[in-house]
């Protein structure tokens, strides 16, 4: 809390004051700009301090955050006048990277106020990402906000805005299934395995051959708790080496069929030009297994597993195309969840703006006075009910006296609030008053965890 108050706009010096703060964003992403433009506009994190300070020393800009990833560059700023602010941010981007604004403009999008807030919430929740609902962007946004704290370009509004954005992203992740269906082939294989076996902890995997996707799938299965991994490779040394990586058991390639009966999941990825697993073979295996199901993942091209085995009861076979189909279906399911996520975002924007509005000085003063008056009334009632000896006149006198005390106490804070509100630090005074006297008690309060992030 102290850190927030202190971290304010030391470098963002007060400009001409107006009453309201505006949040603006100017940015470009994979949707609006090709990689050639995006890389020109990126801000390396090692040297982010300089652009941040330059941004905040622009006229009319009080606070700022720059999010720069390979897919997007977003500049968030808090300004007193949003048209000038927007223009300043654009000018900053163009000046800093030495690209004429005309050239840049067609790739840039900009949002102000509610739309800017909504944009940040959507970005952090992965709704604006190339792969819908991907989680990395949240971490990148947290880092970017951290840089702003470090370089003192985050003030009270940015603090609240970003903390809110992170909590919204978290809420969306827990309340919707936006991130729950796999969008990579190797992970899709794991999910299918879970739809067949439920628990993977007592399952055995056999990896035949090598290859990036196959090894990745094996790794995912391992991290999902499979009991054992058998590794077969035409070159036994390679099998030994890979097995070491998976803490698995190497087996001789020509013997892999003998092991099939104790294996639940088979990942095949060899360079063999023909089928190496045949239906007759598998029919025997499944009989020996007493029909306990088997899941075959054939990642090899040309295919190594005869597709006929899928017709055998309790055998499930997926090749690369099938897995790709699963990924496509998962993305469709994510799009469905995205609708629920948008609803959450709209709800949270309302909450956020209720807070922004509370930073206005008038309602704060009203609430402050009401708070004192409530305390006074409560205490005086309690006290008077015990003082039966007093007559009406005495009671009135006591009442008047307490009123006078309250008015004197309240007078100075109110006067300062009114005076300071015309300055940039006004928001800090208002925020401090609201916290010190618990004026937001009825509303949901999320205290920013500045220490962790900063």
């Amino acid at each position, binding site marked *: 809390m102290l850190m927030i108050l202190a971290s304010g706009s030391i470098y963002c010096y007060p400009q001409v004051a107006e009453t309201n703060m505006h949040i603006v964003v100017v940015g470009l992403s994979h949707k609006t700009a090709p990689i050639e433009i995006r890389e020109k506009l990126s801000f390396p994190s090692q040297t982010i301090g300089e652009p941040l300070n330059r941004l905040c020393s622009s006229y009319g800009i009080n606070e700022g955050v720059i999010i720069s990833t390979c897919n997007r560059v977003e500049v968030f700023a808090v300004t007193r006048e949003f048209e000038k602010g927007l223009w300043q941010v654009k000018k900053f981007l163009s000046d800093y990277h030495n690209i004429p604004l005309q050239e840049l403009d067609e790739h840039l999008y900009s949002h102000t106020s509610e739309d800017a807030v909504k944009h940040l919430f959507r970005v952090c929740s992965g709704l604006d990402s190339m792969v819908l609902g991907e989680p990395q962007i949240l971490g990148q946004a947290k880092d970017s906000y951290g840089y702003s704290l470090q370089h003192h370009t985050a003030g009270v509004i940015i603090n609240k805005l970003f903390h809110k954005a992170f909590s919204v992203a978290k809420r969306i992740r827990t*309340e919707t*299934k936006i991130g729950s*269906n796999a969008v990579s082939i190797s992970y899709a294989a794991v999910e*299918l395995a*879970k*739809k*067949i*076996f*439920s*628990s993977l902890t007592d399952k055995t995997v056999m990896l035949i051959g090598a290859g990036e996707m196959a090894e990745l799938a094996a790794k995912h299965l391992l991290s999902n708790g499979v009991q054992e991994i058998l590794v077969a490779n035409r070159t036994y040394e390679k099998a030994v080496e890979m097995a070491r990586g998976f803490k698995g058991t190497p087996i001789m390639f020509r013997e892999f069929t003998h092991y099939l009966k104790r294996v639940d999941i088979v990942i095949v990825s060899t360079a063999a030009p023909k089928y190496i697993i045949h239906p007759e073979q598998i029919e025997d295996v499944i009989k020996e297994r*007493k*029909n*306990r*199901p088997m899941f075959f993942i054939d990642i090899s091209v040309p295919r190594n597993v005869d597709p006929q085995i*899928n017709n055998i*009861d*309790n055998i*499930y076979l*997926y090749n690369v195309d*099938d897995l790709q*189909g*699963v990924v496509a*279906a*998962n993305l*469709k*399911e994510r799009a*469905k*969840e995205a609708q*629920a996520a948008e609803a959450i975002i709209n709800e949270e924007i309302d909450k956020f703006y209720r807070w922004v509005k509370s930073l206005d000085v008038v309602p704060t003063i009203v609430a402050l006075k009401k708070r004192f008056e409530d305390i006074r009334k409560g205490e005086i009632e309690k006290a008077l009910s015990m003082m039966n000896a007093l007559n009406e006149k005495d009671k009135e006198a006591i009442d008047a006296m307490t009123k006078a005390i309250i008015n004197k106490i309240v007078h100075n804070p109110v006067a300062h609030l009114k005076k300071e509100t015309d300055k940039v630090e006004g928001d800090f005074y208002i925020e401090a008053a609201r916290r010190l006297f618990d004026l937001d008690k009825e509303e949901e309060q999320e205290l920013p965890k500045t220490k962790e992030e900063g």
Partner: protein
Amino acid sequence: MNIIFFYITVIAYLLATFISIAYLIFHNDKVIKVANSAILAGFVFHTLTIISRWFEASRAPFANLHEVLSLFSWMVVIIYLLIYLRYKVAVIGTFVAPLAFLLITTASFLPKEIIPLAPSLESYWLPIHVSLAFLGNGFFAMTFLLGIMYLIQEHYLKSRKVGGLYFLLPSLDILDELSYKCLTYGFPLLTIAMITGAIWAEYVWGSYWSWEPRQTWSLITWFLYAALLHGRLTVGWRGRKAAIYSIVSFLILVGSFAMIKIFSWGAHAVFK
């Protein structure tokens, strides 16, 4: 009073059915919670229905067809609730709700008056026999629903075109395991129900076994489920085969029960 509770129950199960369908369409986790609350509410009123009818009839309300169908529906729901407590597979509720609704709606079309039992039938064996029989049937109904769910999920996985219910249904393994568990409960219950039925028959008619249609058909059902249990335990029947078998067996069970009631065959028809 029991009639009022009864209709509240019908409405609750109807709502649960609609909400369940909404869940299957929209995939929203909040919806399934609402559906399960509706089932729970229905169950509470259903229990009140049975208790109040018990008092109003001054006997166990397990005699006429209206009563036993209501009991059957109640058994299915309580078994589901127990499974839910243990395994937390809420999606089963979306299949239980329509079945509970179907059973109780059928009951609602049947004569609901409380008819006193013939004194010859009054015995404490009646509630024991009937409740055990329908608890067993409740488990078999569950294997039927789980079988359907298994076939749906298996179809998605086999056809390699995932989508729709694939995302909602649990794994094949869980469905198969639950179905097996239900069978291991249902089968002994059916066995005990047949024994208590025979004792009661002896008490009322003076003969343990008279090959009347109800008895014959329960014996047939008993053999069907005995074969399934045997197949599962020794031959390794599971998955698709066991699912189809569970579905067919339950349809035979329900079909024979309906036939006997409709055509009033045999001694059990006295309760009609």
